[in-house]
């Protein structure tokens, strides 16, 4: 019964290589997209690559900041195995609130106090909506998809009702609202806010106890319960953070567009989810990272930029994005699964 022929001994791979593989591959994917962008980018008169001009690169960062900020907290939500469909509506509510406070209230307050108060009020309202999502999800045990679908509809309605379904314009002048817009639409402020929040979320997820709980709950909620982890409070905080970041994104949106817009942010939740998923997160929870989400957001942003530079029809752009999403997830499933 002894084997007659000896097969060559199988090579044992160092299992730690599997750990390195995931982030390295996202970076490789990002590199590939950048390389592609450089190759097909239109050239300026002197032959240089328009894509690589500093102005263009910072434009990309600024363009992705709003979705990028939302997708940071969306990463946490998806890590817990949940989903937050209400962020687009919360963004609209936040743009409306900040514009209302700036143009219609506290007219005799000082500029700095007025602006800080308006931002704080909009962000607090957004965080409160997120926390409400979390409370319902954690305490009534309704699926996050359903709860946030309901608040996506309800909060959109609230924003329209508050504003009478009209945009609130933030003028170009010397009044407090215009000052606010001038400050908060600057590239450095927008990109800086995105970078600071990304760093904070990366630290939170990778280094804190809260981050550990977030991953544990998404990995196996039942086991997290048996381990005595604070599941309810963790979930409530995760959704509150999601609301807060949508609120901050809303403030930046209002400054950028010089208006409070109750119809803003439609389908932003889907763009954020797409960025998170391209970044390697699993909708079933437990897998995903801020680094991955940053890569996912950048890939989408660079693609948009590239296609606009080439004057590709925006409808075609959507079709191309659809293919990219499926492609990205297919590649990840290949590397995860057996």
């Amino acid at each position, binding site marked *: 019964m002894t084997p007659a022929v000896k097969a060559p001994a199988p090579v044992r791979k160092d299992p730690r290589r599997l750990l390195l593989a995931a982030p390295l591959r996202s970076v490789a994917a990002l590199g590939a997209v950048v390389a592609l962008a450089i190759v097909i980018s239109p050239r300026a008169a002197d032959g240089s690559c328009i894509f690589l001009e500093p102005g263009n690169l910072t434009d990309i960062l600024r363009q992705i900041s709003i979705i990028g900020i939302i997708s940071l907290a969306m990463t946490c939500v998806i890590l817990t195995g949940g989903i937050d469909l209400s962020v687009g509506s919360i963004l609209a509510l936040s743009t409306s609130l900040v514009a209302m406070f700036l143009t219609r209230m506290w007219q005799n307050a000082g500029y700095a106090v007025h602006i800080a108060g308006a931002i704080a009020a909009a962000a607090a309202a957004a965080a409160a909506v997120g926390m409400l999502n979390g409370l319902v999800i954690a305490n009534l045990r309704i699926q996050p998809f359903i709860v946030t679908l309901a608040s996506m509809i309800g909060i959109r309605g609230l924003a329209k009702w508050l504003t009478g379904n009209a945009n609130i314009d933030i003028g170009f002048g010397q009044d407090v609202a215009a000052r606010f817009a001038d400050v908060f639409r600057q590239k450095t402020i927008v990109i800086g806010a995105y970078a600071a929040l990304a760093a904070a979320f990366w630290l939170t997820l990778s280094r804190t106890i809260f981050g550990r709980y977030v991953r544990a709950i998404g*990995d196996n909620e039942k*086991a997290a319960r048996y381990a005595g982890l604070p599941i309810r409070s963790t979930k409530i905080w995760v959704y509150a953070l999601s609301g807060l970041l949508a609120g901050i994104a809303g403030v930046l949106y209002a400054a950028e567009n010089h208006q409070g817009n109750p119809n803003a942010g439609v389908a932003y939740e889907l763009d954020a989810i797409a960025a998170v998923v391209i970044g390697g997160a699993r909708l079933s929870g437990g897998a995903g990272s801020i680094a991955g989400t940053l890569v996912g957001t950048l890939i989408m942003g660079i693609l948009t930029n590239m296609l606009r530079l080439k004057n590709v029809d925006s409808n075609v752009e959507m079709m191309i994005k659809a293919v990219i999403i499926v492609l990205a997830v297919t590649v990840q499933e290949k590397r995860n699964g057996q």
Partner: protein
Amino acid sequence: MPDLLKAEQISKHYGGAAALRNAWFSLRAGEVHALMGENGAGKSTLARILAGAARPDSGAIFIHGERVQWNTPLDAQRAGVAMISQELDLFPSLSIGENLVIGNLCFGPKSFVGARRIEEFCRPYLDQVGLKRPAAAALAQLSVGEMQLVAIARALSLNARVILMDEPTSSLFEDAVERLFRLIKRLKSSGVAVAFVSHKMDEIFRICDRVTVLRDGETVGVRDIGAASPREIIRMMAGRDVNVSRKSDRAPGPVLLQARNLSTRKLKQVCFELRRGEVLGVAGLVGSGRSELGAALFGLDRITGGELRLNGRPFRPRSPHDAIRQGVGLLPEDRKLQGLMMQMSALENSSIGALSRMRRFGFVRHAEERRQVAPLWARLNLKCGAPSLPVAALSGGNQQKALLARWLLLSPDVLFLDDPARGIDVSAKEDIYGIIDELARQGKGVILVSSELPELLRCSDRILVLNNGRLSAAFDAASAAQEAILAAATSEAAS
């Protein structure tokens, strides 16, 4: 006797790790052949390959000396090889009969099937396995043991000549095991070959004719049971002699936990006391309320009547979080479903419950985390390549140890262990028995649930028997007889 089934030089890799390396195996008609080895030795992988559920990277399989190549379990079934996996792979929402006919080649391709035709088709096979239930009965109503009979009946209805069973007794209590063994003997006399994956030495010696031992993906050897000793097989599996620790002399201290008429949706007026430094064994069938006792103590099930006292004070846990805070821990029955976060590392799984002891301003102190977990892993004899590896990459025994380390780190006064040695290899079992003894010597109270009576007799000071949610008997472990425990667990009087 010629080989009915033969496998040569089977190799299989999963993501770079070798599960099987040139393993070989042979099976004769009408024999019961045990496949033994520690966890991760490759038994289940080999069984899956023989059943067509996994494809080998290299190697050959022969049936009656003819080389075969299987791409799906269906191919193997056509050749008369069926597998009954641990999970049984049945459809709980269908009836017994539907489970038998679905996808069944011998039932034939029919678009419409009537209940009568199903009953006619199934009856001989259900009779053969001794299942006295109508084919129209819903599978979900059956006990685990009966479901297993359905799975075997399905295999027979496929005209299987070779039946592979992956740890068929791990979820059965003694009476169901006896029924299964009688059936296996009948199958054997009708010429069916049974390959039997198991960790239980006494079972192997009772019903098997030969045993093949695997270690680290390689076949170590094959022995006739008549010419082998348990000690020799253990040495073949482990590659070394295993130290069998003895229960140390313990003197239980003051009462730690007291239950008076404890009732939940499943428990009926259960009374017991647990002392410091005592291991209290709990015997009972699956569904007897033995796991529900843990659920009540751990705040998972609502207590509907009676009272619990912990250290003399009333104890009514509202949640696992609350129970842990008050000093009660629970190692759950199903480590993958209820215990581990499979995508997280072994280290993170061990430390997740006690992160508040290794933090600074809400941040985890990684060096401190390793410093606190490392000595516990050493005590448990847990070996893993890198602490940052996902726990899913560890063998079953090491996974269980990583989970047990979580509780050692929290160090609750009362630890409820729900079948902690289920489905893990011999040396890991010994390590866990050693820890149970150590906990008792430290003055903790341990409640140990087990399906295996020898394990209970060996580790416990006293043994409670649950039957249908009631406490049907209590024994002193030193003087208890297995028969008496079994009688108390299975008698109908308590229901």
